[in-house]
């Protein structure tokens, strides 16, 4: 199973901009590589990354084969209220992983 690592500060002041870092283990097979006998290795990538904050989408990224293996994405959001940040990765061959982090806003 894919291992995901999410970095979200545990606490933040209301209105503060917080940085979220997300890393997931995935080969991101491009579909452009060939084996030694010349057959193409089929594409197997993560295509979509979405971050929701208490159910509301705050960030979305479409990924292409040019994203390096074990995709790393860093972005920011404003700490509005205490709750949960959920990160979803979806991709080829039914790949789907969700990782959540709790945030306390003071």
């Amino acid at each position, binding site marked *: 199973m894919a291992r995901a690592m999410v970095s979200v500060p545990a606490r933040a002041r209301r209105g503060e901009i917080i940085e979220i870092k997300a890393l997931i283990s995935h080969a991101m097979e491009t579909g452009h*590589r*060939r084996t030694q006998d010349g057959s193409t*290795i089929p594409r197997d990538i993560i295509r979509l990354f979405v971050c929701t904050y208490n159910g*509301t989408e705050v*960030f979305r990224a479409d*990924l292409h084969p*040019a994203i390096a293996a074990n*995709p790393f994405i860093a972005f920011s959001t404003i700490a509005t209220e205490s709750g949960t940040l959920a990160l979803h990765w979806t991709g080829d061959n039914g790949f789907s992983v969700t990782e959540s982090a709790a945030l306390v806003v003071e």
Partner: protein
Amino acid sequence: MIRRFSRRELLLAAGAGLASLVVVRPARATPEAMQEAIRKVAGPARINRGRVKLELPPLVENGNVVPLAVGVESPMTEADHVRAIHVFTERNPQPDVLSVRLGPRAGRARVATRIRLAHTQTVVAIGELSDGSWWSDSADVVVTLAACLEEA
């Protein structure tokens, strides 16, 4: 009497020749596939230079993992924010790299990731603002070890 050129003069002349080559090269010589991909995203809109800052190392040893960051100057308010950021490459097998959707809740229009680069090439980032305007930045990257070429 025939004047002989010294080694220094010849080198200087060669240097001047190289310099003029660099100047003659068009500033935005981007291959058609990338332009097409950009047009698919931006439509016929005018893409201005500026406001976007694309951060990439100028020299990359390993094209398989290249740190990339894109920031756009914006107050990120409800009335004036960045809607989307897109990244394209000129000479990878496919021009698309990353498309990001964000809004005022991001607080700051900046995204960082790691990409693959198959060749020494130009990378372009464009940003769409809430007023409908488009802005761009580009970076030239020299790649020593290319991505995508190895066999499995």
